[in-house]
């Protein structure tokens, strides 16, 4: 098992290097130089800030030198400073915002899995029943609903019309005057709509995968034999089928992480949640390229680690994988 985990880890190392490479290339291959665009409309020669940035970032050096310098600073956890007026360190900005994005994504993931597994399993064991048909319709609608539109509709309904839930930020104006428990309640109320929006699409996808996976498993011979030896249907489905159907879900969970995290861009900017997604949008508008590159590196490295964890978890629950058979 340890050898398997180490092998996966070794395979991930070149990807880590690749992440820095792509993040660098993406920004430096664009026409013009990043500082010039960040300087805005002020002519370059008259903008002292531009010259300072250029020198600081070594933009006058050849690209490969710039890349090597940048990577060697990354290794020492130096992500540079933001272009914004106060020039705060990028790593500090990310550290402030990462927890809320992680919290949102973990909660979403838990909700998606706890709801999608039973729904998918039920519609598979009752294929073509009314329940199955209703979930299938839901799945198609879920796939087709733009998350930002769903957010707008929920804001109109619960925020504007009914006035039940807050639609922006993480805290109410009077947060400081609330008691401890009221503060927690306030926080939860602010998170409700964003989480509903972010789980909606994922729920559709996952219940579909779960249904598919379950359908495959219940056609297998060992399910027949479990029935043949007289086990109760509850045991056949709950113990023999469900466990095996869950295996591919572990992998899909890992693979769909980038999608889920990518969704935070939209959700966080609509609901004004100060997380990584919102930071990324702001940085894109301000062409704040140290922040953009830092963000890209951190978010994709986290995704890589999560994928790695999913791989190892898969190896733990399914010994067949460890013996070297490739999954695809």
């Amino acid at each position, binding site marked *: 098992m340890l050898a398997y985990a180490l092998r996966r880890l070794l395979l991930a190392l*070149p*990807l880590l290097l*690749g*992440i820095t490479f*792509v*993040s660098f290339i*993406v*920004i430096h291959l*664009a*026409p*013009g130089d*990043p500082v010039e*665009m960040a300087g805005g409309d002020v002519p370059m020669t008259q903008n002292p800030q531009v010259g300072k940035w250029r020198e600081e970032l070594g933009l006058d050096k050849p690209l490969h030198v710039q890349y090597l310098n940048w990577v060697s600073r990354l290794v020492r956890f130096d992500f540079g400073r933001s272009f914004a007026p106060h020039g705060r360190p990028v790593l500090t900005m990310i550290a402030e915002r990462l927890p809320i994005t992680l919290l949102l994504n973990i909660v979403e993931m838990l909700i998606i899995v706890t709801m999608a597994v039973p729904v998918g399993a039920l519609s598979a064991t009752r294929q073509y029943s009314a329940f199955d048909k209703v979930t299938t319709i839901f799945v*198609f*609608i879920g*796939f*087709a*609903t*733009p*998350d*930002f*539109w769903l957010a*707008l*509709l929920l*804001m*109109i309904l619960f925020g*504007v019309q009914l006035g039940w839930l807050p639609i922006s930020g993480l805290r109410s104006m009077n947060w400081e005057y609330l008691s401890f428990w009221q503060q927690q309640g306030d926080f939860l109320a602010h998170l409700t709509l964003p989480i509903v929006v972010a789980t909606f*699409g994922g729920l559709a*996808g996952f219940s579909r995968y779960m249904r598919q996976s379950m359908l*495959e498993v219940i056609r297998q011979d060992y399910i027949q034999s479990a029935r043949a030896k007289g086990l109760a249907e509850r045991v056949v489905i709950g113990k023999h089928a469900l466990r095996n159907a869950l295996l591919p879900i572990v992998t899909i969970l890992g*693979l*769909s992480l*980038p*999608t*889920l*995290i*990518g*969704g935070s*861009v*939209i959700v966080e*900017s*609509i609901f004004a949640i100060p997380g990584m*997604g919102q930071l*990324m*949008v702001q*940085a*894109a*508008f301000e*062409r704040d*390229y140290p922040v*953009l*590159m830092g*963000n*890209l590196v951190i*978010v*994709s490295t986290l*995704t*890589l680690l999560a*994928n790695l964890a999913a791989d190892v978890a898969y190896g733990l629950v399914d010994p067949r994988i460890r013996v070297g058979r490739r999954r*695809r």
Partner: protein
Amino acid sequence: MKSFWRAFRRNRLAVIGGIIVVVLAVAAVAAGSIAPWDPNRPDVKKILDPPSRAHLLGTDQLGRDVLSRMLHGARVSLAVGFVSVGIAAFIGITLGSAAGYNGGMVDATIMRLVDLMLVFPRFFLLLAVLAFLKPSIWTIMAVIGITGWMGVARLVRAEFLALKEREFVVWSQSIGASGFRIIWRHILPNAMAPVLVAMTLGIPAAILTESGLSFLGLGVQPPRATWGNILNEGKDAIELAWWLSVYPGLAILLTVLSYNLLGEGIRDALDPRLRQSAGRVGGRGR
């Protein structure tokens, strides 16, 4: 082909999806002549008018007709969907067949590249690219295509791995056909079915991505109307004008739904065994 039609026609939802897809395409192409108003003509006397007989879907903050803007927006959405999926398919087919046919180091390199691209949450990557490009409909198409080819590459590679051991390929190799000829004339045509399905399912994903970017204000720029940026403007008037937020979203929903129904219908009719293997170009757009 005949059996394909028979199987396809029996799937009522897929047929309905196909009809809507055709109607939308016609409406988008003919937007210039069927739109009741000029989509960019402001009218100070009609600011935020609710839906009426003159303006079926109401007007926006500048008094422009929402229906006309949506018809012109359909053009953008469909064009972005088709072109970006075309770009993604081109890259994916090229790299996927190179990997699958050659195997060895080429295969390993290309597949690591696919793994690498899949590690980036798509919207983060798109934002980083778009921050430094002049936002135009062409850049949007290009970046959506360039960040969305990995699914097709995997699909094509898998098909190639299965097909390249078959007799007809080995025969052509034995009479000295070039690698390019074998790939292009012999293997690729046999591998196209799942790719076409993935492309059909990739169009709605690209449409969702484009509308999301335009909604954020980093996609196609106003005054050119797109469903995404009508929604973006509608967001500011959310308490006054629900029609600005509801109708463009419905249009996206309906379009994406129809393409998905059509795509899955084609897949099932082509070959029920494809149910599992056919992926989407670039996932669900994020």
